[in-house]
């Protein structure tokens, strides 16, 4: 079923297609499978949200796209295609050409993600010169332009400042300027607003949306915040314990969830506009990889679980790019966000 994900993108070939991705980490428990059969695609100009709680494997997924997992202590299987080109077989040097040029990434901690020993400008210049082969002067002018573009006031002066002279929000803007400096086709944003205050988060979300539109860029947005997903994502991939459990458009996943975990997340999520609805917690916690159940991984915490839920369960296609991993998806009448 997973290999059909790509086929269903009939109108345009996807920018990123992940197919049967599995990742194992070396640990004191031996090789641990932390990702299993992860498949989804990001279409052109699409923003796809990768959602889940800590331990769901969403960050591992995003790091494996760029081949940034530690090489010696991890094993990756499955296909990762960037505009039809398989990334898995690339040499390190070839992969380095893709990183930053075609796929860029921004991270959660703007405080630590920029090098403290170099100016913001130098960091952008290095990347631009590396990928586009421009002169120092051109690259610097471009850096100033990019900083202005992402809304940093006074870019001509700030280009030669160090990260510690920037506030958290400004640093994330600078990080975005760095990431977008070579106009990548795909931006992977790994919880880019989690460490920021809400008013700054709003600024950054708008900025990412704007930049994506301007540059015809696709975005893979990793987050645990359903509000952020509702705000910025066209499509949603819900992950749980290293697997994709549901996929669909934002509308579908939020309004007519088909997986009990998605329903659980929606019911647990507080809503600033709605106080009437009671918050219903999902019992328990995400199991660590060495305690993943053999059957449905959510069964232990699921209020709808039956005996057959102890059996392994596959991702079922419900329609074009709409899928769910649940034994009982066709019997359950789940409640969506209202």
């Amino acid at each position, binding site marked *: 079923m997973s290999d059909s994900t790509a086929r269903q993108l009939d109108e345009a070939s996807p920018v990123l297609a992940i197919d049967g991705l599995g990742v194992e980490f070396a640990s004191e428990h031996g090789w641990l499978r932390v990702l299993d059969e992860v498949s989804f695609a990001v279409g052109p100009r699409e923003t796809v949200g990768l959602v889940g709680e800590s331990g769901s494997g969403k960050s591992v997924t995003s790091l494996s796209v760029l081949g940034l997992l530690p090489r*010696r202590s991890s094993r990756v299987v499955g296909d990762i295609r960037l505009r039809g080109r398989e990334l898995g077989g690339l040499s390190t040097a070839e992969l380095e050409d893709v990183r930053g040029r075609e796929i860029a990434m921004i991270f959660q901690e703007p405080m630590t993600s920029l090098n403290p*020993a170099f100016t913001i400008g130098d960091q952008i210049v290095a990347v631009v010169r590396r990928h586009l082969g421009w002169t120092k002067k051109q690259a610097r002018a471009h850096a100033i332009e990019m900083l202005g573009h992402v809304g940093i006031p006074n870019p001509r002066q700030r280009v030669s400042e160090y990260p510690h002279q920037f506030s958290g929000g400004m640093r994330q803007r600078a990080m975005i300027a760095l990431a977008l400096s070579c106009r990548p086709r795909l931006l992977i944003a790994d919880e880019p607003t989690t460490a920021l205050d809400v008013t700054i988060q709003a600024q950054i979300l708008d900025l990412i949306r704007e930049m994506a539109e301007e540059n015809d860029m696709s975005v893979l947005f990793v987050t645990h915040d359903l509000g952020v997903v509702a705000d910025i994502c066209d499509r949603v991939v819900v992950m749980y314990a290293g697997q994709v459990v549901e996929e669909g458009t934002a509308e579908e996943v939020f309004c007519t969830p088909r997986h009990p975990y998605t329903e659980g997340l929606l019911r647990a999520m507080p809503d600033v506009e709605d106080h009437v609805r009671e918050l219903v917690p999902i019992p328990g916690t995400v199991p660590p990889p060495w305690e993943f159940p053999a059957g449905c991984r959510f069964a232990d915490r699921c209020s709808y679980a039956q005996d057959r839920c102890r059996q392994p369960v596959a991702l079922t296609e419900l329609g074009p790019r709409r899928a769910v991993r649940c034994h009982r998806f066709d019997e359950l009448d789940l409640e969506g966000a209202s």
Partner: protein
Amino acid sequence: MSRVLVRRLLTMIPLLFFVTLGTFMLTHLIPGDPAITVLGDNSTPERVEAVRERLGLNEPLLSQYADWISGVPSLDLGTSLFSSEPVRDTLANRIPVTLSLTAAALFVAVLIGVPAGILAATNPGRWIDRVATIGATLGVAAPSYLIGSLLIAWLALKSSIFPATGYVPMEESVVDWARSITLPAVALGSAAAAEIARQLRGALRSVLQEDYVRTARAMGLRGRIVVGKYALKNAMIPLVTVIGFQVTSLLGGTVIIEQIFGIQGLGSLAVRKVLEQDIPVVQGIVLVSVFVVIAVNLVVDLMYSYLDPKVRVR
């Protein structure tokens, strides 16, 4: 930069006070009477009194300190208890010897330690890391005098490339200087090399795990640039710190190495004077080495302000 320098110099005032006071107090912690040390146990009270008068031992402690410290700027460190030669003259021709030995050892240490540390950090778990780590662990544990002795036994006594003992000043012959300094510098510098390699490996390993290194890699910068430029500049601060510390211990290490290789420097002088209990000379040696250490620390501090933009940009 100059502001940093001035601020550092100001904070050094209490340090210099404690250091000189400590050095001075050595004489007065001594059980028994230095005058008797000079004269031997069975001298007449009159002669003891005369010597005490000459050494200024009858004055109050504070004025003795004031007396002694006021001589320091003009390099007047008193006279030897035995030879009546001014301490300054005794030290003068030995200081360059010890400094050149220390510098050569530091050179050896950096030359071996830095590449070894970088190679080990960038190839964790591989054979090159293992070799470097084992070498560094052994190097830290091996006493310099064992290495020195073995070098003498195997390289100096059995062949004539390197002399076993003695020191040729650089002004006499650069080649002979290099020959005479190589073995002692290697013996003295090996532990420092090991320590530098260990610390640099650790620092670089932890820098390589920082988020900004991940950013640099995510942006497609070449692996060697990520390590050689992005990571190394951040690892320089701990590296400079270690090198600064190493100067301190190298300077101490000269005491033994000069003894083994028969080099007439401060170290071998110190050993002799300790056994003779010639306190003014020992004081002079201690003072000189402390000043060298303080000067090195000052350089290290200034390098921090160059390396760490947080210090540089207010």
